[in-house]
C-alpha cells in the first residue's frame, strides 16, 4: 500500500505555533502536536472530542467474536479467516441534538365491511336471499403531528461514504467521548482526517435531512400527503473524531470485509461467507419445503370443494402450505446468494 497522504498546505497552530500539514479542503484543523482544534481561520472550536480507540488485536478479537456468532455450521470460519487489512482511521464527525416538530395533513384509505344481500338460486331451483360481507373503500382524513428529538450525526467529508458508514455513525455516543488527546492514540498509528464540512454547513444540512425524514415518515402511512410543515432547532453541536476500521479478510481464497467500530472493537456490519455445505443444507431445506407445501395443498383443496369446510383440515393445510413456501424461499435464497450481510 502506498504511503499516506502528504499535503502541500501548512497551517500554523494558534495554540502551540506548531506547523500542521493539512489537506487542501480542510476547514477544521486538529494540531498533530498539541491536539488544539480550530477552524482554518484560527478560530477556536469549542469542545473537541474524540472516542478512544482499541488496538489492532482487540479489533481482531471483536471481529472473531462476530464471525463466531454468525458462523452457522461453518465451524472452521474463525480459524481459517485470514485478515489482510485492518487499518485504523479517525474520521471527522459532527453531531448535535435536533428537535423537530412537524404538522401534517393528508388522507388514507381503509376497507370498510358492508353487509349486503343477494339473491341466489339453490340446487332445487328455488331462489332465496342471503347476506354476505363486502368491503368498500373508506377515506380517513388525517391531521397529525410529529415530534422528535434525535442525535443527528454527519460524516464531515464531502461526497464521501464508506462501507458500514450508516451503522457506524449510529454507534457514536457523546457519553463515550473524551477530550481530544492525540498522545493517547498516537501509538495506534491512525490515519487522521480533518473536516471538510464546517459547523454552519453541517447545521444547514442537518435541518434539511430531518425535515426530509419527517416528510417521509408522515407520507409512509398515507395515501396522499397534502401538507407537511417542519420546524427544527439544533443544539449542542459537537465536533469529534471517531475511530473506524475496515477489516478485509480472506476465507477459502475469497475476499470479504467487515466494518469495525474502533472504540469498542466490535463489528457494526460485516460479510459472512456461505460454504458449499451450507448451500447444500439450505437447498435440502428448500426441497423439503416444496414437499411440505404440496402436502398442505392436498389438505386444502378438498376443503374448498366440500360443502362443509372442516376447519381442522383447513388450518393444518394452510399452516403446512405457508411453512413450506417460507422454507422454499429461504432455502433457495441462500443457494443463490453471494454472501450473508450481518449487523454486529
Amino acid at each position, binding site marked *: 500500500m502506498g504511503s*499516506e497522504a502528504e499535503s502541500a498546505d501548512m497551517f500554523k497552530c494558534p495554540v502551540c505555533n506548531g506547523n500542521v500539514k493539512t489537506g487542501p479542503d480542510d476547514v477544521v484543523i486538529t494540531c498533530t502536536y498539541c491536539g488544539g482544534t480550530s477552524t482554518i481561520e484560527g478560530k477556536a472550536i469549542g469542545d473537541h472530542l474524540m472516542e478512544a480507540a482499541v488496538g489492532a488485536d482487540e479489533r481482531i478479537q471483536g471481529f472473531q467474536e462476530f464471525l463466531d456468532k454468525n458462523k452457522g455450521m461453518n465451524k472452521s470460519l474463525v480459524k481459517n479467516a485470514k485478515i489482510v487489512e485492518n487499518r485504523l482511521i479517525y474520521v471527522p464527525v459532527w453531531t448535535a441534538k435536533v428537535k423537530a416538530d412537524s404538522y401534517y395533513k393528508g388522507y388514507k384509505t*381503509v376497507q370498510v365491511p358492508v353487509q349486503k344481500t343477494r339473491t341466489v338460486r339453490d340446487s332445487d331451483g328455488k331462489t332465496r336471499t342471503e347476506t354476505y360481507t363486502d368491503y368498500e373503500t373508506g377515506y380517513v382524513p388525517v391531521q397529525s403531528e410529529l415530534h422528535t428529538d434525535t442525535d443527528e450525526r454527519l460524516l464531515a467529508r464531502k461526497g464521501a461514504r464508506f462501507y458500514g458508514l450508516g451503522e457506524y455513525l449510529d454507534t457514536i455516543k457523546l457519553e463515550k467521548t473524551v477530550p481530544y488527546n492525540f498522545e493517547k492514540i498516537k501509538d495506534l498509528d491512525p*490515519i487522521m482526517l480533518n473536516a471538510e464540512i464546517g459547523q454552519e454547513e453541517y447545521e444547514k444540512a442537518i435541518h*434539511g435531512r430531518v425535515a426530509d425524514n419527517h416528510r417521509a415518515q408522515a407520507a409512509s402511512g398515507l395515501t396522499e400527503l397534502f401538507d407537511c410543515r417542519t420546524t427544527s432547532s439544533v443544539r449542542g453541536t459537537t465536533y469529534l473524531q471517531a475511530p473506524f476500521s475496515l477489516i478485509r479478510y480472506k476465507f477459502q481464497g475469497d475476499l470479504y470485509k467487515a466494518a469495525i467500530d474502533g472504540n469498542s472493537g466490535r463489528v457494526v456490519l460485516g460479510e459472512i*461467507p456461505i460454504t458449499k455445505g451450507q448451500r447444500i443444507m439450505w437447498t435440502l431445506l428448500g426441497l423439503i419445503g*416444496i414437499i411440505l407445501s*404440496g402436502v*398442505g395443498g392436498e389438505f386444502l*383443496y378438498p376443503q374448498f370443494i366440500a360443502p362443509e369446510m372442516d376447519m381442522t383440515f383447513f388450518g393444518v393445510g394452510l399452516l403446512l402450505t405457508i411453512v413450506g413456501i417460507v422454507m422454499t424461499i429461504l432455502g433457495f435464497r441462500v443457494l*443463490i446468494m453471494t454472501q450473508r450481510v450481518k449487523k454486529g
Partner: protein
Amino acid sequence: MARCNFCDADFNTGPGDVLLVCPYCGTAQTTDGVKFKDHYMIRVHFDQGEAQTTLLDWVSKQLGAPEDLPATANFVQYEQIWYPFWISRVDAHTEYQGMGRDATFHDEWPQRRGAYKRINFFWKPESGQFTRRHEINIAGVKEIDEDIRNFPIPTRAKEFFSHAHAEEFDGKVLHSNMTEEQAKAQARQIAIDRQTKLVLQEISKIESRKDDINVGETFLIHVPVWELTYRYGNKKYKASVSAPTGYVIESQYPRSMSFRAGGIGVGLIMLLLGIVLFMIAFDVLGLRAMLSGLGLGPDSLVGGGAISGGLLSILGLILLYKAASRKEAKESV
C-alpha cells in the same frame, strides 16, 4: 494539441477538452492558459498488483465463478485512469406560491367512525419556502461509465494534484470537458431541479417562485481508477477498481462450465417436474386419465400439484436464468 502556458510543453488533447492538465508539469489550466488552483486528487493506495489481487479474490466469491479463477486469470490490459469530478456546494433558498391539493370528506361510514364514503379534492393556494444546502458532484468527462460516475469519493485525504504521483503508475489523467463556469452553471441547474422536486412534494402547481441560488466553493478533483481487463479461458472480462480504497466498482466475471451445466440441468428438471405437476393438477391433455393406473383419487394431486408445481416451475426458471446469464458484479459501499 495544446501548449502548456507554464512549462511550454506540447501535449495532446481530445475534442471537447476545456480544462487541461499538462502531463509534464501537472498544472491545470484553461485553454487560454489561465491556471486553475482548486485542483485536487486522492492518492493511490492500491498499486496495480494489489488492485489485481483484490479484484480476483473478490470476484472469485461471486456465484458460479470458477474456483481456479485467481490462479489462472491473466491480466491483458491494465490502465490507471484519473477521472475528473467537479464538486460544488450550493446554497439554495426557494420561496414559492402555487396550488396544493386538499380534500373534504363526506358521508361517514356508520360502522367505521372517522372513515368517509366520499372524498372531494380541491385546490387551495399555498406558499412556503425551502432552504437547503446541496453538495453536487459532476463528472468532468462525458464518456464515463455510469457506475464510476456514481461511485462515492473515497474517504481518504485530499491533496493538491501532483502529476508526479499519477506518473508513478503511468496514470492517464483525463482533461475535463467542462470549465469551472460550466460546472458551476450545471451545479446551479441541478440545485434548482432538486428544489423544484421539494416544492412539488408540497404543491402540485407552481405559480411563482423566487430562487436564491448561491454556488459556493467549487473544486476539481481527480480520482484514480484501475481499468483492468483479464482473460479467463477464451474470453476477456473488464473491471474497474478504485485505486485509493480497493473497492471493486464493477466487474464482469466468468461462470464455470460446471456451474452453468448444473444450473441448466437442475433448472430444466425442476421446470419440467413443475409443469407436469401443474398439468396433473388442472387435468391438461387428459393427463389424469393416463395416470389412472396410479390409483389417483379425484381430488388427489390437485391442490398439492398446483402449489408444488408452481414453486418448482418458478425455481427452475430462476436457476435457468442464473446459469445462462452473463454477469456483472458491483461492490456495495
